[in-house]
């Protein structure tokens, strides 16, 4: 189809390099590194299942071309417990039971990380605003809101 281009980027704290065609998205790029926590679902950037942090900003991996990662720092859900310990957000999601099937959960957790970074003490409205781009078909929304509040309390 199209010619691959070599890109170099930081993936979960390690510098990596790979050749990838310009039509492939970030989710496909991550799959090459056996990272499956970012999941393409709606394919339109609406559900948030493919959320990934690029230079600390949450992006929809299904709408983000892989080649754009060149020179950037990419963080996925798999990195949050790199030190063997769950992040406070991850722990809060467990403590409040904020998921059922778990397919959308990595996206909610990464978006919550960005929220708490920018608003360490979020109001309910802040939480709803930040998480309005993430959908959960199991509808664990009330527990997700509780989880974010609990994580905020525990990191304060």
């Amino acid at each position, binding site marked *: *189809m199209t010619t691959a281009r070599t890109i170099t980027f930081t993936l979960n704290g390690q510098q990596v390099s790979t050749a990838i065609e310009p*039509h*492939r998205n970030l989710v496909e790029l991550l*799959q090459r590194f056996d*990272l*499956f*926590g*970012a*999941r393409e*679902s*709606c*394919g*339109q950037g*609406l*559900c948030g*299942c493919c959320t990934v942090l690029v230079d600390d900003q949450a992006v929809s991996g299904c709408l983000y071309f892989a080649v754009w990662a060149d020179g950037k720092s990419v963080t*996925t*859900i*798999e990195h*949050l*417990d790199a030190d063997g310990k*769950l992040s406070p957000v*991850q*722990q809060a*999601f*467990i*403590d409040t*039971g904020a*998921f*059922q*099937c*778990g*397919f*959308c*959960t*990595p996206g909610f*957790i990464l978006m919550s990380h960005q929220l708490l970074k920018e608003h360490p003490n979020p109001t309910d409205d802040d*939480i*709803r605003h930040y*998480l*309005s781009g*993430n*959908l*959960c*078909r*199991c*509808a*664990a*929304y*009330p*527990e*997700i*809101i509780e989880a974010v509040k609990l994580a905020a309390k525990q990191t304060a």
Partner: protein
Amino acid sequence: MSEVGRELPRLEARAKVTGRAEYTHNLRLPGMLYGKVFRSTVPHGRIRRVDTAAARALDGVHRVVTGEDIHKVIPEPYYGPAFHDQPILALDKVHHVGEPVAVVLAADPHVAEHAVQLIAAEYDELPAVYDEVAAMQPDIVVHDVLKPAGTFADLKHLKGRTGTNVALDYHLRRGDPDGAFKSAAHVFEHTFKSQQCLHVPFEPFVAVAEPADDALVIHTSNQTPSFVHTEIARLLGWPENRVRVKVPFLGGGFGAKVYVKLEALVAALALIVRRPVKIALSMEEQFYMITKHATTFRIKSGVGADGRIVARACEVFWNGGAYADIGPRVTQKSGFTSPGPYDIDNVSIDSYELYTNRTPAGALRGFGIPQLVWAYESHTDLIARELDLDPVAFRRNNILRQDRPQASGTAMKDAAIAEVLETLAARMGWGDNKEFDRGNGAIRRGRGIAVGFKASISPTTSVAIVNVSGDGSAVVYTSSVDMGQGSDTAYAQIVAEVLALKAEAVRVVHPDTDVTPYDMGTLGSRSLFHMGNAVRLAAEDALAKLRALAAEAGLPEGTNYPPAEIFKKRFGMQAGNVIGAASYVPSYKSPDAQTGLSDNVTPFWMIGGAGAEVAVDTETGAVRVEKLVNAADCGKPINPAVARTQLSGAAVMQLGFTLSEIMQLDGGQVTNASLADYKIPGIRDIPPMHNELVAAEQHSGPFGAKGLGESGTFGVSPAIANAIHDAVGVRITELPITAEAVLRALRKQQGRPLEDAA
């Protein structure tokens, strides 16, 4: 502390929050090809030609497969749980837009996707039928001849029938409805409609088939691995032990992923190309796979001067779409509950499953019950209003109480209907009319209540194995699928309770038909009761064997040695296993073919209800749900925290089906097949909720528990419609209740109706 009743987090919690949980979605195998599907663009037509030359010529395309190619490896390539009506790829005819016609296989899914665009098909178009009531007439017939699968006795009379779209008709007669209507003080008659909508699990349908020497392994996101196992073996003409079906976690199911979906297709493709084949649908493609039945429900009630319902007649038409799937079971199993949870002596029910040229309809969280409750609880509310009776008091006066026979003739045992009704009334502050703010100006407020019930599935079989190892740790083997409902955790709690372990120390093996025993399926809220009973019995069997082992080891009877010590004492080292096994098969009597009656129609009853407070903007028709109370009888919950989230999750899903979700059709084409245009509830759409499990016990359930996955859906739609009526005096009789629908009703009420769109 007891393990049953403990609110521990799901066993797989860590795997899910770290993104490491295993889904079929993740699976890639060496040499694997990706399949992309070429689909019909017409709703009904004879296939004249499928031109695949340009697709085959594209660089990187491995193979293009059509229905004729499938025919060569599978001589009778038709599948389905009730009818063998669905071809693996279309043969001769297409029956709905989006039906699979051909598949392109390539190592790169983008290449396959591109090649699909190069396929061209020509059809001789046939007239199509979309409406369930219109399909009762044989003017347009979807299938030339009916082909029931033979699995269900009540479908046998349909074999070979031509000139009809009726895929099942279920009839029930109880008492003397005609006589009772004649002598009734009041007679009420209404028609309600519900829309076609769908599950949209966020892990879209995905399956991988992997050929081995003389066997086939199927990895799939499916709720019924045992059924897939049997059905693929039947299609291939192989013994079951040459087919292996494996299911990891599911990224949502909701009834979509029951029976065969992509599995027959990937199996046939893998046998043709002798390589692993994966098909993963896009979100858009899910709109062409399986949906929820649209329905038309005509309901008529006779009421005595004392406010008692004396007769009810129900005529239900189920829009089954192009293939029967499990629709005929929905028609019968839900059919006999269509008069609602009321004590009515004279009942008639006529329930029809109809083929149409739409995407097939099957099971969706409630198995038809939400469509029925929508109608009978809207109707019941209208009767109360007409008679100037309080809606709760009217229900209280008519409700089915403990031990009274339901329409089918089966007595209500362990069915806390009255308790659910009273809980809703209490949490809504019903009777406290002075306290309730009815709004003013353009914003008017109202409240409504609704209660529904459901039977469980039968006949049905569940088999479980519990293995205790030399160190005393336990592993459970079942073919239940954990799709988020928490069955793994519940089984661990049950085994832990019996064997005096901690639930965290129990491991649950996911379905693998080479390893895990038979289970009918993870559907209809059946797992906790049916498999839960089997798991409990298997654990008790293991416990009895451990005690026998202790006796063999010469340990004194009646002492509580930890299992590890028993093994060590018996085998002289940490060694050995104890295997407990059990089947659970509840008793059941199928309904009489003539009367539709049975005194043992279900192993247990599920009860669920909702109360809603709404604010209606009379200038725009917008409805805001300001409070939603959900109540259910799930017996004694094994894990109350997980149970409550099942209740609220089901209610929110039904909230979407109530207010926004609808598959829009134009000439048989779905015009909103994406999450951009098909609106499901997001975090901003969640009303303040109160979720309550009423105090109850299912005496035949494991530790008093029963299923709950669907109960939260029952009452939501009619509770909201009843609340809107209470607020602004208009009655919405068709789902979804959009702002436009409410505004149209308001304008009609004001004598200045809105014009129809051109």
